[in-house]
Structures are given as structure tokens and as C-alpha cells.
């Protein structure tokens, strides 16, 4: 697994050892002056290693391959995009310039999320999309850390193998960590809203895929739908009613961009889907 070997080579030896001895690690959490936590698929393990400032700084330097300057833009937004779809959340004290965050100092927290590739994790969702002839969009929702990105990555593979032309909007470099799938335009590190417009105008996709949508993508998604491009996206959410009643998503459901809702839950390492159609959900004001 290239992500694991990257981490083993680019983490301080003590953290690398912690990862090696954990089975199926998912996340490494470093909080200043606290024990390092390793989250695996089954448990959350508190290690005997205490996170010092030196360890945090060394981890950051090694993860960025001593090239922090390449990450200064994303650090302002609280994360680092690393090779092979690895993402690190980063926080400290914000530095401001002209009312905008210009950087961070006094680093105090770092979480390294290790991507997974689960073959056929997206098969149920793929089958639903296929039964509609790939003409309707879907919104995949779950609580953070359940596996939305893993499912989307597998969905990209399945859709691409079935011969569809895709446009993947990958703002954080998490969806397209492996070699590009066949006939897929990958907009890596673009801002989502800009990339949606570009993709629809220039790469003629049969389906648009993106991770973690929010308010800023609303207009662009509506314009994509107007061009007849179905969208599959993901969002944080605990239930379909919560998703449907969220103000930011209401216009999207009103426009019929996401007719299918796919809720994702996980028990240990197994993924479970709950499908529903947006127009059929009761108790939602949309």
C-alpha cells in the first residue's frame, strides 16, 4: 500500500513504529503534551508515546518532505494534502494579515488520516445508479470517518470501468490518489465551485463526482445540473431528514440534483447503506 509505505518512510521512527504495529490503522492523532492516539478500524488505541513540540514539528517537517512552503495555502485552511491521498489536519494559533488567516504558529495538533482502498465498497451505490441508467444524481452522507471518501474512490473505479466519462473534482487530492482511471478528467487541488464550472464546460462528463459539498458549491452544482450532468457528491450528516432540512442543501434538492440519498454507516469494518429517494422522505421540509 503506497500510502502506508510513504508514512513509514516519512514519519519520525517512533510514530512509524506505532503505525507498523497497529492492524489496519486509519488515523494518527497527535495532541501536544498528550499521548499519541492511533485509530484503527476496530479501536482507538492510546499509545505510551507523549507528543512533544519537537515531535510535532519533526512530524510536520517530514510529512511535508521538508517543503512546508508547498503547503502554506492549505495550511491556512487547516490541512495538508499529502501524496497517495493522505490528509493531515493541522491546528495551532492563527496568524492574521488584513483580516485573513496568513498562517499558523504554535502548532498543537496534527491528525494524519490514512486512506483505504476497499474494492467493491461502492457496489450497492453503483447498482442503484446503474438501475437509473446513470441519469440521476446521488448524495452520499455519513458521520465523519465512516468511509465516504473510500466509497467515492471505489465508485470512480466502478463507473470508469463501466465506460462512463467522468469528471472528478478533487480539491484535497484524496479521491484520485492512484493512477487516473480511464476516461476521467481529474481536477486536483482546484476549488470545487470553479472546477465544477470548468468540468461541465470543457470535459463533457457523463457524471460529476466530488467530496464534501457545502454552501459555496451550491450555484455551480445547480448550473451543472442545468447542463444535464448528474452529480454524485458526499456530505457530513447523520440522517436523511437532517440532510434534507439543511438550508445549504435545500436548493439542491429543490432543483432535483440529488434524487437519491445514500446513508452510510459502519460496524467494525463492514459498510452498510441506507437508500432513500429525496422526494419520498417524510418530515423533511424541502
Amino acid at each position, binding site marked *: 500500500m503506497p500510502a502506508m509505505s510513504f508514512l513509514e518512510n516519512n514519519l519520525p521512527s517512533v510514530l512509524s513504529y506505532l503505525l507498523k504495529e497497529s492492524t489496519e490503522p486509519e488515523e494518527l492523532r497527535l495532541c501536544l503534551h498528550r499521548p499519541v492516539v492511533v485509530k484503527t478500524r476496530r479501536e482507538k488505541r492510546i499509545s505510551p508515546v507523549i507528543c512533544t513540540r519537537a515531535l510535532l514539528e519533526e512530524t510536520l*517537517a517530514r510529512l*511535508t*518532505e*521538508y*517543503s*512546508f*512552503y*508547498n503547503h*502554506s495555502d492549505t*495550511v491556512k485552511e487547516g490541512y495538508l494534502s499529502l501524496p497517495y491521498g493522505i490528509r493531515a489536519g493541522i491546528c495551532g494559533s492563527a496568524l492574521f494579515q488584513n483580516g485573513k488567516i496568513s*498562517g499558523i504558529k504554535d502548532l498543537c495538533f496534527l491528525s494524519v488520516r490514512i486512506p483505504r482502498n476497499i474494492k467493491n465498497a461502492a457496489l450497492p451505490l453503483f447498482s442503484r445508479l446503474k438501475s437509473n441508467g446513470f441519469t440521476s444524481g446521488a448524495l452520499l452522507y455519513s458521520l465523519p470517518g465512516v468511509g465516504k471518501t473510500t466509497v467515492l474512490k471505489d465508485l470512480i473505479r466502478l463507473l470508469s470501468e463501466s465506460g462512463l466519462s467522468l469528471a472528478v473534482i478533487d480539491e484535497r487530492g484524496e479521491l484520485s490518489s492512484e493512477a487516473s482511471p480511464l476516461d476521467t478528467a481529474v481536477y486536483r487541488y482546484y476549488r470545487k465551485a470553479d472546477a465544477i464550472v470548468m468540468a461541465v464546460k470543457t470535459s463533457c462528463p457523463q457524471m460529476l463526482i466530488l467530496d464534501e459539498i457545502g454552501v459555496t458549491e451550491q450555484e455551480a452544482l445547480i448550473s451543472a445540473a442545468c447542463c444535464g450532468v448528474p452529480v454524485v457528491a458526499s456530505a457530513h450528516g447523520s440522517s436523511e431528514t437532517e440532510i434534507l432540512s439543511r438550508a445549504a442543501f435545500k436548493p439542491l434538492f429543490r432543483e432535483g440534483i440529488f434524487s437519491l440519498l445514500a446513508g452510510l454507516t459502519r460496524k467494525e469494518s463492514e459498510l452498510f447503506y441506507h437508500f432513500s429517494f429525496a422526494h419520498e422522505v417524510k418530515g423533511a421540509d424541502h
Partner: protein
Amino acid sequence: MRILGILLLSGFFAAGGFAFGELFRQRYKDTKFLLSLCIHLSREISYSGKNLKSCFSSYPDSKRAECLAFFQKREFEHAFKGLHIERSLKEELLLFFRTLGSGDKEQEEQRCRRMIALLEQEESKLCSGIKEQIRVARTVGVCIGGVLLLLLL
């Protein structure tokens, strides 16, 4: 036998003078190399988006490959072992390279600019005096050799 020994000794001192002169030339060349490396790094950091290791590896000078390999591995002490530069400048450079890459783009550009200015200053200082220094070293070597020859013969 004695004459041969004296000739060899004198020759040794004269050659030493020439070798010492060459050291000045080498110091100038190495300073120029470091200056050009810093300019290259500054450009790569500003425009290419490459990581530091790739910035070092893309430096287009095959003659310095061995030294650049140490830079890539962040073994700066080793990299400087083969370079002839002034001790105070070496310390500055070591500090510069050890901390390079830890700041954001603006900070790195600023740091590179400062280092480039320092190296340019050193280069021009060396450039203005290099011919004279080489000539002095050679002359002193030859003179010592000659004096020894006269005294011992």
C-alpha cells in the same frame, strides 16, 4: 643524493605555493556554485511547486552530482566537506540549509534573497582579489623553494 633531496624539497615548496593558489581558485568556484544553487532553489521554490529534494536534484550541473546527493539526503555537513569556503560563511550556509523548507513561500523567498546577497558579496570579494592571491601564493611558494635551495646547497 643530497642535491637531489634539496631539489625535491625546493620543488615541494614551489608546488605547495601553486596548490595553495589553486585553493583560492577552488574557493571562488565553490562560492559561485553555492550562489548559483541558491538562485536555483529560490526560483524552484517560487515557481515550480516542487519539494526541496526535487529542487536539489533538478540543479543542472552533473559535475556536482556527488555533493548534490548529500544535499538531497539533508546531510549538509557531508555536502560541505568537499567545498572550500570560509568558516563563517559555511556556518551561515549550514543554518540556511538546515532550516530551508520550514517556512511558507514568502519566508523561504526572503531567506533565499538574504543568502544570495551574502554569497554575491563573498563572490565579488573573492573575484576582485583572486588573481592577486593566486600570484602571491605561487610567488611565496617559489621563493621559499628558492631560498631553501640557496641555503642548503
